[in-house]
């Protein structure tokens, strides 16, 4: 055939694909760069600690058992607060999705509460719940509550109406329709809402520990900050980051298990 040309391929791109090593390599590269910069003197030691020194602090934390002393109260505060806030949030979100009156009453209220920086209410929580654990739980619970509510009622709204109608047409009980059709159908949306809520819970954990906490990651970071002890500060911050990655991994694992029915 004269004049035959191959058709050029032009369908590529726009499909970002993962690479399991990319994140690790980038992370390591940043650390090496900082270490090199500090030792070489072209980064001022006032601005950043030596990554190797942070690692050493970490090791010391581990050896002296201080790591456990700080982690246990923090994790229990996070767990209690997040379970309270997310649990209540899911319940209220489902109620908003199901009942017209609840919806009409609560959506504006939630919208009004959502943008309040919860940290600003900290003194109020201390008066309501005292200086002990309760005020810290309340702060974390309050902060996780609103985003969970919003994600949950959105997810309930998005459940396929055809499936609900099917349930009604077979005469299923109200509670069966809710537990077997509405809740599983809303689960993807609820879980992706939890990702956001739990990250907020970690942020609020540090804020909660600003007040009257002797032990806890937040207390540790704040003490280090006020002493301008950069190594300790960064060791604490690293723990928070690891916590965030862990929480995200747990939700990813949950999604894989619970949402096996999606592709």
């Amino acid at each position, binding site marked *: 055939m004269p004049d035959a040309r191959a058709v050029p391929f032009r369908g590529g791109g726009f499909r970002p694909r993962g690479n399991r090593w990319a994140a690790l390599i980038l992370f390591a590269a940043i650390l090496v760069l900082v270490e090199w910069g500090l030792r070489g003197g072209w980064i001022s030691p006032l601005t950043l600690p030596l990554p190797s020194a942070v690692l050493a602090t970490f090791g010391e934390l581990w050896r002296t058992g201080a790591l456990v002393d700080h982690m246990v109260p923090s994790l229990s505060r996070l767990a209690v607060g997040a379970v309270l806030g997310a649990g209540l949030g899911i319940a209220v979100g489902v109620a908003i999705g199901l009942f017209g009156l609840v919806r009409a009453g609560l959506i504006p209220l939630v919208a009004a509460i959502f943008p309040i920086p919860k940290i600003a209410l900290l003194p109020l929580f201390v008066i309501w719940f005292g200086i002990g654990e309760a005020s810290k739980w309340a702060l974390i619970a309050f902060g996780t509550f609103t985003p969970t509510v919003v994600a949950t009622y959105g997810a309930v709204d998005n459940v396929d109406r*055809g*499936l609900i*109608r*099917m349930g*009604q*047409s*077979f*005469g*299923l*009980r109200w509670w*069966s329709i809710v537990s*077997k*059709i509405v809740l*599983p159908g809303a689960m993807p949306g609820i879980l992706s809402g939890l990702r956001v809520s739990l990250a907020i819970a970690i942020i609020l954990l540090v804020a909660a520990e600003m007040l009257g906490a002797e032990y806890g990651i937040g207390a540790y970071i704040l003490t280090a900050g006020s002493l301008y002890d950069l190594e300790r500060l960064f060791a604490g911050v690293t723990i928070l980051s690891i916590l965030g990655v862990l929480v995200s991994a747990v939700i990813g694992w949950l999604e894989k298990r619970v*949402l096996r*029915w*999606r*592709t």
Partner: protein
Amino acid sequence: MDLTLRSITHRYGDTEVLRDVTIDVPSGRVVCIVGPSGCGKSTLLRIAGGLERAGGGQVLQRGHPPDGCLNPLTYVFQDFALLPWRSVAGNVELVLEDHPLSAAERQATVADVLARTRLDGFRDALPRQLSGGMKQRVAIARALAVRPAVMLMDEPLSALDAQTRELLMDDLVGLWTRQPFTALYVTHNLSEAVRLGHRVVVLSRRPGRVREVVDLDVPLPDRHDAHPDLVRARDHLWSAIRAEAAAADAELQDA
């Protein structure tokens, strides 16, 4: 049990959708409703099963549902309406779980209907793993599981390709032949109507009225596309519906 729709009228806001529709569905028969798009056939079916309230008229159940009937009026939906998070067997079980049945009875019913729809080997498959035709067979199995008095079928084959549709029509004929069921079957496909219907009711375009009722005497198992009576019936139905369909089409374009 017979189902009678008596003088059904309905409107959505200012639009009159159905006007004085009376249809009788005798026990053991398949009554097909055909009509141009937007003639209110699906609305009529939703009214027939109590999923929508009619503006006027009555839906009456006459006689008693058969023994062991769990849900007298049972739908088969065009989009299958299967729960994607439940397996084939789980989707069938769903509609049995609210009834006082022992686990053994429930399992027996599931096994029975899956066998009748030739789905034995797919008990544990998830809906996303199934083709459209298989999904609709699961939905039909689910409907059979509650031993309905009347099946309300809303364009059950319209979401399927032509070959699958043929196969499923054979399945439905087979199911009916082995154990006659009563059905009100809505479709826009005339071939389907003359293959499956003992009676075909033609609705006019909006507002839907009964325009014509055609009874077909050929036994279901003897029907095939080239059967002279059926060809004649299909041509007759098409001539009845053609002008309406054209007008309905133009109407939609104006809207």
